[in-house]
Structure formats: C-alpha cells, structure tokens
C-alpha cells in the first residue's frame, strides 16, 4: 500500500494496521525519515517538499511492486508527505512485514533506497541564507545501485541527455 499526503502519520497506528490479524508475520521492519535541523553544516529552519502528483503515486506503486516481486512479504507500506515540514517532523514511512526478519529488513532497506532515487520529490530547504533546493547525493545513487545486481529494473532514472 502506498500513500502520498500532506498530513502527518501515526507510526504505531500504521504498523498496527499493517500486521493486524496476520499470524504469518514474524518480523516487521520500519524506517521513518525525519527533518533534521542541520543539512551538513547549514542550519535548516524548515523545508518544503514538492512532488509530481500522479507520477509520484505511480513510481511508489512500482517500487513497492518490485520489492514484493523480490521478497516474500506479508505486507508493505509506503507513506510519503509533501508540503512544508519543520525539524523533527516525519517525512516518510516505509514498513515491510515477512515471516522472516532478514526478508523484512532487506526489503525495507531496498524500498527507502529506491524511493530516494526514483520517486519524484524535491526538497527546498530554508536556511539562514535563504531557500535552496537540495542537491541529489551520489551516495544515494550508490545505495540504490546496490540493489541493481539481483534484477535490474531497466529503463529507470537514466540521464535525460549525455
């Protein structure tokens, strides 16, 4: 299941709903991304998350489907917020449940890595010198690339031009 929303989410309620009544689940892995008050050595007062409505949902559905094709999951959930957020606010929730813990943990890591490099969101950070669009990090591409060996999805996130 995926959701894109402006409102905050309740991690406890989300994961309770996810595992409710499924007695095959032995392990639940969860990742929550939060707004920090520093980006490198720059203070961040707040940030605004822009996204591409329509394509965002499409990509999140696809990323989730890819995880479920790679790992035997009993349940999975991605919730991503957009709009203005302040330090301490929750940005994204990824949760995966499986009969075995390694499966849940791996799939959770995969989802957040892929989401970071494929879902069309952009962060505008408000710092002391004004608002700046956050630059994508090579380390995120590297992290996402770790998952390419197994079964490259093909055709995603290429450069638009050389």
């Amino acid at each position, binding site marked *: 299941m995926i959701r894109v929303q402006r409102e905050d989410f309740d991690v406890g309620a989300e994961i309770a709903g996810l595992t409710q009544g499924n007695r095959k689940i032995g392990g639940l892995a969860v990742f929550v*991304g939060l707004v920090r008050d520093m980006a490198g050595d720059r203070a961040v007062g707040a940030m605004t*998350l*822009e*996204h*591409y409505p*329509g*394509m965002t949902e*499409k990509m999140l559905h696809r990323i989730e489907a890819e995880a479920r094709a790679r790992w035997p999951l009993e349940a999975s959930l991605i919730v*991503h917020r957009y709009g203005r957020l302040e330090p301490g606010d929750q*940005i*994204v929730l990824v949760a995966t449940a499986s009969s075995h813990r390694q499966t849940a943990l791996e799939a959770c890591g995969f989802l*957040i890595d892929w*989401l*970071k*490099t*494929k*879902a*069309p*969101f*952009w*962060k*505008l950070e408000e710092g002391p010198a004004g608002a700046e*669009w*956050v*630059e*994508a990090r090579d380390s*995120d591409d590297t992290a996402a690339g770790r998952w390419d060996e197994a079964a490259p999805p093909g*055709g*995603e*996130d*290429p*450069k*638009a*031009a*050389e």
Partner: protein
Amino acid sequence: MKLLYFAWLKTKTGVAQEDVELPSGVANVRELLDWLKGRGPGYAEALADLDAVRVAVNQEYARPDDPVGPGDEVALFPPVTGG
C-alpha cells in the same frame, strides 16, 4: 503537448506548467530539449546542464531517444531528493 517543470527548473523557466505546440522536427526527448533551450534566457539557463535534468514522458522516466508527441505530458525536473 503539456509541459511541467519542477523544483529549480520551475524557478529558472518561471513556468510550472504550459501547453505548447511542437514544431516539426521535434520527435524525441533530445529534440524537445534542444527546442526548449531556444525559447528564452530562462529556458536556456534551466537547460544549460542536461546532466542535471531528468525527463518524464507520461509520468515515466525517459531517455534522450525516446519519442515525444503532441498528446504527451512531459515533465522536466532535477534529480529527485525525497525520502
């Protein structure tokens, strides 16, 4: 064709969304970007470094040789930074 711009591509072009009529000779992503560059200084600046530009055609990531046509929705944006 419907064009969408996000993040600093929107700031630089000064446009979030526009409908354009494609001139003849614009049939793929590369040709579209070349044509857009000539539409004004804002476009030229936004598209100066194509390594920093991602393109989606009908909400799918697209490559330079992928075709584009009058009915398409094409989005231009920087590498994503969500999560």
